[in-house]
């Protein structure tokens, strides 16, 4: 096992700091030059009272007879695995 108990941890940490300072020197400038507000996502509270035009329908009512099956080809681009994950 490759542990490093005898190496001075402080030295390794100092090296990390030096490395990070060097890494961020160029990146910071790029971030500043870009006027950016981030992704604007739709809000979640609205005062509309129906967006779905299915008022009066029982679209959300539980009805076992019309149980929705998952589409068979859930996503053709997702392959392998089936039901057990690989560790």
């Amino acid at each position, binding site marked *: 096992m490759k542990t490093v108990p005898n190496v001075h941890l402080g030295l390794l940490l100092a090296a990390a700091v030096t*490395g990070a300072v060097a890494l961020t020197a160029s990146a910071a400038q790029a971030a500043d030059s870009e006027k950016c507000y981030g992704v604007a996502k739709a809000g979640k509270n609205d005062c509309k009272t129906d967006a779905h035009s299915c008022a009066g329908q029982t679209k959300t009512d539980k009805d076992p007879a019309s149980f929705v099956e998952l589409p068979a080809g859930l996503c053709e681009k997702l392959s392998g*695995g089936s039901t057990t994950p690989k560790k």
Partner: protein
Amino acid sequence: MSRLRELQSRIAAMSLGRLDPETLAGDVLDDRPIPAAQRLRIYRNNTQLGLVDPLAATFPVVLQLVGEEFFLRMAGDFVRAHPPQRPELLAYGQEFPGFIGDYEAATSVPYLADVARLELAWNFAYNAPDREPLSPRALTAFALEELETLRLVPHPTLRFVASNWPVMAIWQAHQSEDGPDQAIDLDAGGDMLLVYRPRQETLIRKVGAGAFAFIMSLSARQTLAAAFTSALAGESDFNVSAELSALLAAEIFAEAIPS
């Protein structure tokens, strides 16, 4: 109980699907030709869809993965079981990943709950308080011994997501309406992810077991020395210089507290 309150209790129960609209028909004026119960169903429908909508906004990848019809059914079941307790929907759906994990109809999509966990973490970071990240330069002031006992506090927007599935690739592939443009191998192995927002953009960073344990330990306010020990337990050849350097540059910390 007042008359108004009793009426509102009944309408609330009806809106959440716990009371048949027919039993409230006598509470409202029955204007034919549309019967009162039918009109009340509009409110029930609006309430439930009005709560499914925010879930669709928080979990857009889950929605894309299962399709609208299935999502509506699953989210509708969730809404009825876990209606929000408060009027802010920005954080609604905390129990949704767990609910998905237990949702029998979704067992054929075993990674769905973890994708939902990732989306919840992303949503949290998106709305979390803004905080200037720690500049690596601030650490140059510390002596070697001080660095060892330093407590580096992760950015307050940070959330951890660990999955046995390649959820980051699945998430990334669904960032456009068109769905994935390349194949994703579900056998590719799991992900350990740091989700945070140091500035404007919400970021997802994939890390190894060592770095994951390292940040978790720092999150629990451990010193760098203690976090290093945790990292080695997770990954025996954890390269603390390179890993910490990358994490600092990625602006994953907010504060450095000397012991």
